């Protein structure tokens, strides 16, 4: 499998504190990669390095073929990012938000027009094109936010706890979108506190105190830790953590 994220002993120190300690892993094209860990394990720091927002202290990493030290602008063009805190503009309409992000990513007017129609169809938001984002239910905002994060057809999309707070049906509809994107070849890098969602990933890594304590498919992890569920696997690993938050 072609790998789109490769890290080798990637490390970040803040003074004496080692937030991420020698992370080495690969993520393949089109893979859904779950990035789990307790609060404070170092997930956010790792993600910020992978997105080209934070310079590592040592180690190597390449994202979509670009170096995290020297090619951060190229990385930013090749990735999408969605966090729990929406990056959508509440006082713009649905269509305006799509246009805004398309513009930011350098798409031309024609491309943006075509993409807007495509996205509205896919999300079944055709009738809401002129609705202010502030008036949308949370679940729709999350779906729109995800679609906007991949508006420029990035190779990788980073999802930071994307499904917080929605009802169980909406949460699953969101995962349908993720699967569709992965089917089209977009690599998904996702963090979540819902352990059942860990099962939807092709592979899962679990960070504890700045290191990757386990990395494998959910089925293999359950075998390895002799557990029935990812919840138990996570609990076995994360309860040993000595760090509680960042």
């Amino acid at each position, binding site marked *: 499998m072609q790998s789109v994220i490769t890290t080798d002993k990637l490390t970040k120190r803040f003074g004496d504190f080692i937030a991420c300690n020698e992370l080495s892993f690969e993520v393949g094209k089109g893979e859904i990669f779950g990035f789990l860990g307790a609060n404070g394990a170092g997930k956010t720091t790792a993600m910020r390095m992978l997105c080209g927002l934070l310079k590592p202290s040592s180690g190597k990493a390449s994202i979509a073929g670009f170096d995290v030290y020297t090619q951060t602008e190229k990385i930013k063009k090749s990735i999408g990012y969605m966090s729990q805190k929406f990056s959508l503009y509440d006082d713009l309409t649905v269509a305006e938000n799509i246009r805004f992000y398309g513009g930011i990513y350098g798409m031309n007017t024609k491309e943006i027009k075509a993409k807007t129609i495509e996205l509205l169809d896919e999300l079944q938001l055709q009738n809401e094109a002129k609705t202010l984002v502030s008036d949308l239910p*949370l679940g729709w905002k999350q779906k729109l936010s995800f679609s906007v994060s991949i508006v420029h057809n990035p190779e990788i999309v980073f999802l930071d706890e994307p499904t917080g707070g929605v*009802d169980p049906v909406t949460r699953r509809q969101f995962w349908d979108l993720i699967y569709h994107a992965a089917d089209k070849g977009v690599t998904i890098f996702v963090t979540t506190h819902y352990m059942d969602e*860990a099962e939807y990933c092709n592979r899962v890594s679990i960070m504890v105190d700045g290191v990757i304590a386990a990395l494998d498919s959910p089925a293999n992890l359950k075998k390895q830790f002799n557990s029935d569920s990812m919840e138990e696997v996570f609990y076995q690993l994360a309860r040993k953590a000595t760090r509680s938050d960042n």
Partner: protein
Amino acid sequence: MKSNNENNIQGKSALSISLKGIKKTYNKGTVTAVKNISFSVNKGELFGLIGPDGAGKTTLFRILTTLLLADEGTATVNGFDVVKDYKAIRNCVGYMPGKFSLYQDLTIEENLNFFATVFGTTIKQNYDLIKDIYVQIEPFKDRRAGKLSGGMKQKLALCCALIHKPDVLFLDEPTTGVDAVSRKEFWEMLKRLKEQGITILVSTPYMDEANLCDRIALIQRGEILSIDTPAKIIESFPQQLYAIHSSKTFKLLQDTRSFSGTDSCFAFGDALHATFKNGTEKDVIGYLQSKGNEDVQMKIITPTIEDCFINLLKN
């Protein structure tokens, strides 16, 4: 005399919280937050309000803690009316809002001291109640609250809500955004508080936490879908529920949904949970195999609270 009366009112009722026909709208009536909500919580009960964002959980908390007036309906806490007796309620309840609301520029100890003083008590007097929780943050007692980690803020907020030994504790999404290990620890703390006789009303968007409550109300879009013990809610699931496994879950999901007899089908971890209008197990497996799914396994399972919630959303 007055305090005697109050005691009488409290003594009469085994109910700690009671709501009748509560309705609340915002934006001049254009947005309905909750409509016709009625339920009650017994003394010493651990009661969960389970539902997603926007269900109306916080509105109910704010009405019960006398911070918001309902448009319609009545509610009492500890026998006191939320409108007439708001002062009495404020003295006997502890409230941990969903948003961190302590003083960011006071230290841990100063915050705790402040809340103790406001309620006319001291940390020493009720130390037993908070000890289990406080010892975990005590090493950092000189740190400003604004500089604390999420988990530590959560523990401090719980201590501050408990320091005046309230009869009723309101916890609005205390575990949102908290990792699975810390969530488990938090619920163990709640269990110990309940054992000390404190009534707890807690809200959560995590369906798996429902089983840790004595009773729960499933709530969505301002309406209660169901109220009962978790076991009874599970018992009342109306259909036979199946778990279906195969090596490729997403393909299996799409194919199961396209089967004509399928009623509902959702991914649950590494399996699907599905109900059927018609068709035997053999029909379903045969259909899935004909679509190219390998190693299909299908078995009857007991629903989870999340299955029940999804089923109630259908109606």
